[in-house]
């Protein structure tokens, strides 16, 4: 980004990681320039990654003037604090902040928790669990344009949007029993139509469209991972 003040940010990331994508979206929303470093975590991890995140050895890692911050939601909150003149992701009111943190935690625990099973389970089980999760998110979104409500696109939106690329995979990897096809497959558009519209609205933001990959690419990646795990 020519002419931008160098604020000394480096992001160690991996293209398809939803956690890395959260950081990319946040940095773009805040108009913060940074150096993007692709870490091929499927192969040998770089020395820099291992040094900067010795505990978990995973991405994303944000390097800011040589100091490291890890865990995507921690990185997001850090950016809010260190660059207060940029678009905030979290609201200022304590209760609203708690509300946003609660739902971001829900995404981590439930959406990631259940969704990541598509990499490791031979058949995504009934996915009544995932249907329940989607319905819960649908209810929380309600009639709001974004999860951030009157504050617009915010913390929870950033936390959740990268996982929408997994929706396609939920659908196609769901357990499909011949006679119960409609029930067992997780047709997200039927279960959570408001969420689908929300995802489309998010995609209209440059920060999002520049950071996410097509559902097809994610589906292909999931297929590759499943082969690696010896599932197909």
């Amino acid at each position: 980004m020519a002419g931008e003040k160098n604020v000394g940010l480096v992001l160690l990331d991996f293209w398809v990681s939803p956690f890395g994508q959260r950081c990319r979206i946040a940095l773009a929303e805040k108009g913060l320039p940074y150096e993007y470093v692709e870490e091929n975590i499927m192969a040998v991890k770089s020395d820099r990654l291992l040094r900067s995140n010795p505990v978990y050895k995973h991405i994303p890692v944000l390097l800011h003037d040589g100091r490291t911050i890890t865990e995507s939601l921690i990185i997001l909150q850090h950016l809010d604090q260190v660059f207060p003149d940029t678009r905030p992701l979290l609201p200022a009111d304590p209760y609203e902040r708690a509300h946003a943190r609660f739902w971001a935690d829900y995404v981590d625990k439930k959406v990631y928790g259940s969704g990541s099973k598509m990499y490791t389970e031979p058949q995504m089980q009934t996915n009544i669990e995932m249907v329940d999760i989607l319905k819960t998110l649908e209810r929380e979104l309600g009639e709001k344009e974004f999860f951030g409500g009157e504050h617009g696109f915010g913390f929870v939106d950033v936390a959740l949007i990268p996982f929408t690329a997994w929706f396609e995979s939920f659908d196609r990897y769901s357990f499909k029993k011949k006679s119960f096809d409609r029930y067992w497959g997780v047709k997200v558009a039927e279960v959570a139509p408001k969420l689908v519209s929300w995802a489309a609205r998010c995609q209209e933001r440059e920060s999002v469209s520049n950071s996410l990959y097509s559902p097809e690419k994610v589906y292909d990646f999931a297929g590759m991972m499943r082969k690696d795990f010896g599932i197909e």
Partner: protein
Amino acid sequence: MDHQQEKVQLFGMWASPYVYKVKWALSIKGVEYEYVEEDLWNKSRQLLKHNPVHKKVPVLVYNGKPVAESDVIVQFIDDVWKGHGGRILPEEPHERAMARFWARFVPDKLSPPIWKWFTTAGGEEQDAAHDAAMEQLRVLEEELAHGGNEFFAGDSVGLVDLSLGALAYVIPMYEEIIGERLVIEERFPSLYAWMGRFLAAPPVKDHLPPMEELKLRFRAIREYFVKNA
């Protein structure tokens, strides 16, 4: 913030470490609150109304508005009662980020092998869990020793201490029940000292669960798991 007319309620359960985490946070801030004990086999309508998503304790209700998830609650307490009592999260941004990181380390990396060790019958599997727990304790020991403070981020109980907190009384209980040591003073001098310091700290010492009852409960839990292995 006007703290005159506020009403604070905490929905909890006597054995839950997450509930104690919140109690200690409220204690750090000197907040007065009403405590409501829940029977988790027969959850109250109020609890289900306040936490419809997870239906769990702890839930803090502040002027009628519920906050759930202990980590979220603790940060909420730090925000609302800013300037009162002790500071729970550090001020400096990088230190704050590190506190949040280490607070997550406990449930994500440390607690699982400790729980596995406690709920597995003696043998290879249990030994492996014990070793895994020791490995994570080593990481924490290094972090604590490196800081050189009384508590993780300074001289008073903060976010990381609260996150690790319950293990200060749970680990010795597990050690007694299983008959095997985990946090040996010679191996983990900083952690061992921290445990004693934490249990004696002002916000903690008068807010601990009934130990004998808890021990009985844990014994029953271990028996259950070992039997149903």
